[in-house]
């Protein structure tokens, strides 16, 4: 059954309608090459036979949806992961590294998406860490360090005080420090993972002129981004990844927005998504001008019984924040929420639960599972907040029966319910968490990435379950970064971009291209 589904999915996967390689590659010199790279994680193939070729003095933009495998490949190049198969070479020599420090020493530097600075140290100390200039006694020569920093900043035209402590800097300035630090290594290959996500326009210009200088010096740059405008401004070549595969690389001048989006999303929707016809009932959730300072604003939509509303967008669009606000984890700062026609204030999860709202959180490890506890304890926890308890004592017999029923219904594979949930596969953990919420008999179910990191078999089962729940009148709000999942499951698709709703599409108008356009606005 499992294998069968997997095969079907595999067969349905198109193998790229765009020509995979650019034509000029024969006469080009590469400073860095990755060939036939494969990387698997339990249950997922993150990278499947991909390649990446970096030329000196050129910017190679790396694009793809969330989960396309970009970050995994960058982590392989910078030495965080080791590939399962494939080869890497730098300057034509084999590139074997033991870890991130080794990568730096060999001439490959990376600007990380998440900031890696030490907040209680000065800007200069952060930049020269492990390379501090020493005086003749072997102590750190701070004077010279600050001077070096000042010189570096002057060449990069960054206006920052080398003596400032990093914690006092804005996020944008911290990013500039990261950039300066990476440049200070004088590396031959520089990887930038979404460097502009925290920058304002002025600093973006600064960064672009730094990139131009680096190009002139012959540095090969890999530039990961989601932003369309940026790509066409900065990139010489564009490589597109999708589902862990390298779809194609071409000159930026040969591509336009439309073509690029097609390369990024060009997939067919398979029978993985057995959407059941459901009768759409009355509105159960109405959100008006909802906002959470710093995360999203002016969000308005309605959700009806029996409906699956897909919520699409890129990482950082505010989708998870919206879900958490609807559930009372982070109370809204503006706007109103109406449940079943009544305006309600939700500032605690249990208030949302009393109103029949359930939230399956995005991160199974961080906010989902009680990893050391049993499957049973994981399933029963939410329902115990207001039922199956008599004078403080849990009515265990009844709870056990209910859990056993859920185990059968969701086909949770576990030797018994007393098994520690940490020993189950990701798919079965997810099913147990879905069971936790179904036991509370919700009327509105919010699912945040319900099938992330689980195998295709369990994925299909969860899709079938969601669809049948909706057919029974449950209202479902489903966040997903997988476009096929969104398009296959949803009655309507809401798209968010940088904290605002950029559009709500009906099922028949929701195509991959339409959604991606709204998501990258």
């Amino acid at each position, binding site marked *: 059954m499992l294998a069968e589904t997997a095969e079907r999915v595999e067969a349905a996967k198109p193998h790229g309608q765009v020509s995979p390689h650019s034509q000029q590659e024969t006469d080009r010199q590469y400073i860095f090459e990755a060939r036939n790279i494969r990387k698997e994680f339990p249950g997922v193939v993150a990278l499947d036979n991909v390649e990446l070729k970096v030329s000196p003095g050129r910017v190679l933009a790396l694009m793809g949806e969330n989960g396309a495998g970009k970050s995994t490949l960058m982590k392989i190049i910078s030495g965080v992961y080791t590939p399962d198969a494939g080869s890497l070479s730098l300057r034509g020599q084999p590139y074997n590294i033991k870890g991130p420090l080794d990568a730096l020493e060999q001439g490959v530097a990376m600007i990380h998406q998440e900031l890696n600075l030490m907040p209680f140290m000065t800007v200069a100390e952060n930049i020269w860490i492990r390379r501090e200039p020493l005086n003749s006694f072997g102590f750190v020569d701070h004077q010279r360090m600050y001077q070096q920093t000042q010189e570096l900043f002057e060449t990069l035209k960054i206006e920052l005080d080398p003596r400032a402590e990093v914690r006092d800097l804005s996020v944008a300035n911290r990013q500039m420090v990261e950039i300066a630090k990476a440049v200070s290594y004088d590396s031959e290959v520089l990887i930038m993972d979404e460097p502009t996500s925290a920058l304002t326009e002025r600093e973006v210009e600064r960064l672009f002129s730094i990139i131009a200088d680096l190009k002139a010096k012959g540095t090969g740059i890999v530039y990961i981004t989601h932003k369309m405008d940026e790509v066409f401004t900065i990139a010489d070549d564009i490589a597109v990844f999708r589902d862990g595969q390298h779809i194609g690389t071409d000159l930026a001048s040969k591509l336009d927005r439309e073509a690029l989006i097609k390369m990024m999303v060009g997939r067919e929707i398979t029978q993985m998504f057995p959407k059941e016809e459901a009768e759409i009932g009355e509105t159960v959730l109405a959100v008006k001008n909802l906002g959470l300072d710093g995360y999203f604003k002016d969000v308005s939509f309605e959700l009806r019984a029996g409906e699956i509303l897909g919520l699409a967008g890129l990482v950082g669009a505010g989708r998870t924040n919206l879900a958490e606000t609807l559930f009372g984890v982070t109370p809204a700062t503006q706007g109103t929420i109406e449940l079943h026609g009544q305006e309600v204030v939700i500032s605690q*999860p249990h208030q949302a639960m009393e109103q029949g709202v359930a939230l399956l959180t995005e991160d199974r490890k961080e906010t989902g599972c*009680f990893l050391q*506890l049993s499957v049973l304890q994981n399933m029963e926890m939410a329902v115990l907040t*207001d039922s199956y308890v008599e004078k403080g004592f849990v009515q265990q017999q009844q709870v056990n029966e209910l859990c056993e029923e859920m185990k059968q219904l969701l086909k949770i594979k576990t030797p018994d319910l007393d098994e520690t949930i940490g020993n189950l596969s990701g798919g079965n953990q997810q099913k147990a968490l879905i069971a936790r919420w179904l036991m509370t008999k919700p009327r509105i179910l919010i699912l945040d990435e319900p099938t992330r990191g689980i195998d295709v078999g369990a994925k299909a089962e969860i899709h079938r*379950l969601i669809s049948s729940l909706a057919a029974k009148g449950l209202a479902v709000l489903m966040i997903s970064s997988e476009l096929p999942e969104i398009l296959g499951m949803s009655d309507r698709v809401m798209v968010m971009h940088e904290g605002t709703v950029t559009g709500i599409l009906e099922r028949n108008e929701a195509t991959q291209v339409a959604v991606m356009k709204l998501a990258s606005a």
Partner: protein
Amino acid sequence: MNTTTHPAPASVPEERKRFKMPQEGSILLVLVGIAVLFEILGWAVRGDTFLFNAQRLLIIVLQMSIIGLLAIGVTQVIITTGIDLSSGSVLALSAMIAASFAQTSDYARAVFPMFTDMPAVVPILLGVLAGGLAGLVNGALIARTMIPPFIATLGMMVTARGLARWYTDGQPVSLLSDEFTWFGSGYIPVVVFIVVAAIFHIALKYTRYGKFTYAIGANMNAARVSGINVNRHLVIVYSIAGLLSGLAGVLTAARAASGQAGMGMAYELDAIAAAVIGGTSLAGGVGRITGTVIGVIILGVMTSGFTFLGIDAYVQDVVKGAIIVAAVVADQYRQKKRKTA
């Protein structure tokens, strides 16, 4: 959803359970091993039995019942990933307060001359409640200000000890009523310890209170998102630990027939050690009262055994320290094994 009805789980024949060693199995083995070791050493060194001496065994239990009460409280705190360093000091404060309301009028210099010859229930209640109040402050501080439990209870440890001394300017409170001291006589403290252990064993296993305690310790974020009022629950757990410290203080005062500000010095460390030896994980989410009780007995057997063998008290501490560290190392090892399993 498919509509086939599932057979009622109750009618399903009990699935063959895989044999699992009870979680306390290994720690019980350690206890037996230590006891046997002392027995052998006893015959070798002193030519006498260690174990087959009813008097000695009863003393072990009696000595440990006070530590045991503290350990039951701190076990629950540690399950929530917290710690309680204040239990020994709170014990002293409660002992002082209880004693001051249990004095007889024969004593000319009573702390509260107008509150002498009170029925025993008054000092007992006041002592226990004082402990509960200290626990409530701990819990409220931790839940509201999010300061680490280590710091909050360290503050309470110093403060409560100071209050206990300040209360009578460091003077012991003595000449307590027979009715009050009866509660410390004979095996009453042992009985109290066993009853309390039974109550919290049941509470942790069968009540919502227990379920939520484990949930918070296993994953506080997940507990919050599951609708558990984490803050309120933490306040309850620390208050219970405080109440138990208070109860231990009352029993200590009753047994000694006096209240002294230096009582319970460093008991919190023995209590934490007992919990950890008994398998309570400092990483939270794991721990059982039965394990803690065995941990308490192990500490008692060690103290008694060392004394029996005539080993120097300073050396005793060295060995005790090593055993506590070994218990935590074993805990880390267990966790790593669980992760890779």
